[in-house]
């Protein structure tokens, strides 16, 4: 049976995907501004973050209204719960992109450090994970979601690797320290973006399968 709420649910999904597209853009631009040392681009990303924040508010408002009016059950309820948990994750990821850009602006005031290896790869992986997480949500693909979650360990390793790389630069020459530290932070930001993508995927699994796999390793009765 067709229900008029089905439209509201589709609208909410669309809003989330639009927000997701804006966040993906922010990540892409932040990576570009980092690799191309583009201060103007970085400033643009920072300015756009405002729009992403507004979207979060809009989605929250609509979701609460939907709960009040529809009293959703079963998959609809899980959908609403997923939206309510994914939206702030997206907003945090956008904030992280903003943070990256702030570091970029600071880094661009000084000459570039020796060509970085680990960070660009880390950034790409994080970007891919976020994109795949959103894909998994759109398609209701729990298999893809699980794959993304599995990649998080890889990203953590890469972060560790980039930190070691930056450490050698710092030990080499004290004048590198300030830039190296800023880059360390930048690496951390991308790692946290990947964590955000993981959280999103956990909610996708919950939405599709009804199983909550968050903190799965901590179950008291494993």
């Amino acid at each position, binding site marked *: *049976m067709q229900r*008029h709420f089905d439209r509201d649910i589709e609208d909410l999904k669309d809003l989330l995907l639009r927000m997701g597209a804006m966040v993906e853009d922010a990540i892409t631009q932040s990576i570009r501004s980092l690799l191309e040392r583009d201060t103007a681009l970085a400033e643009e990303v920072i300015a756009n973050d405002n729009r992403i924040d507004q979207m979060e508010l809009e989605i929250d408002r609509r979701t609460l*209204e939907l709960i*009040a*009016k*529809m*009293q959703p059950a079963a998959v609809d309820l899980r959908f609403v719960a997923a939206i309510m948990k994914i939206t702030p994750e997206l907003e945090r990821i956008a904030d992280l992109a903003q943070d990256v850009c702030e570091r970029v602006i600071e880094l661009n005031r000084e000459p570039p450090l020796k060509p970085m290896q680990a960070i660009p790869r880390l950034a790409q992986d994080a970007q891919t994970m976020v994109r795949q997480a959103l894909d998994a949500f759109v398609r209701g693909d729990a298999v893809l979601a699980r794959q993304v979650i599995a990649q998080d360990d890889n990203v953590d390793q890469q972060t560790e690797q980039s930190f070691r790389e930056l450490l050698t630069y710092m030990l080499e020459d004290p004048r590198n320290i300030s830039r190296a530290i800023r880059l360390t932070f930048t690496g951390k930001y991308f790692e946290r973006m990947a964590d955000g993508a993981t959280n999103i995927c956990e909610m996708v699994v919950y939405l599709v399968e009804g199983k909550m796999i968050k903190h799965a390793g901590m179950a008291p009765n494993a």
Partner: protein
Amino acid sequence: MLTTIDMERLGATATPSAASLESMNAKISVRDFDFFYGPAKVLHGISLDIPDRQVTALIGPSGCGKSTFIRSINRMNDIIPEAVAKGTIAIDGRDIYNSDTDVVSLRRRVGMVFQKSNPFPKSIYDNIAYGLRIGGMHNKRELNGVVEKSLIRAALWDEVKDRLHESAFALSGGQQQRLCIARALAVDPEVLLMDEPASALDPIATTKIEELIWDLKVNYTIVIVTHNMQQAARVSDRTAFFMLGRLVEYSDTKTIFMNPKEKMTEDYVTGRFG
């Protein structure tokens, strides 16, 4: 328990201001409406505006006067001997309690669907055609057309198109209620009053009726009494909360169910009441 003075103060806050009157497209305007069953006063100074082509829900505990109020809109209360109404109810600006109001034509503009579906002991076709025939329509082709249109509008046509001349009682409960809706729609009213239309139906039939209401509001102003709050939340655009014959709060449905102004309203919708 609240005193009468508290209740009166509450009623005052629910009264629409002149500004809000114009901003909404008010189909029905109620001002200071009192209602008595003999010596007993059951509605106290009700004032509200019901917007055109939206669904307005009336909620409240048993005996709060919501049914009495809705039946005043098409003057069905007239058939009760000791009933007395004071104040005004204006539809499109004309007071229906004026002495020169033709009640019969009022009831054709303002249709009603009852809690317990009440199809006539006639065929499905004759049920729908009844209102048309007493209105003077006798041309077979015209009747056929309106009957079909009404049944389509009430989402019942596909289920009964092959058995229009069977008894209305051969239909299920949910179908009978949709038949009553079709019957009310046949005379082309502007307003549709529904007094707990789904309370006697199972959940699936209820959902069908709710979706029908949602579809109908494009063309009709709908006022619905319901004791099921969640139904009011699902189906209505505006909600009025009645208690002990007084209008406690009247606002957008979203506001009533997410962030009501009055504590009494909040107690009622959260189920903490009583």
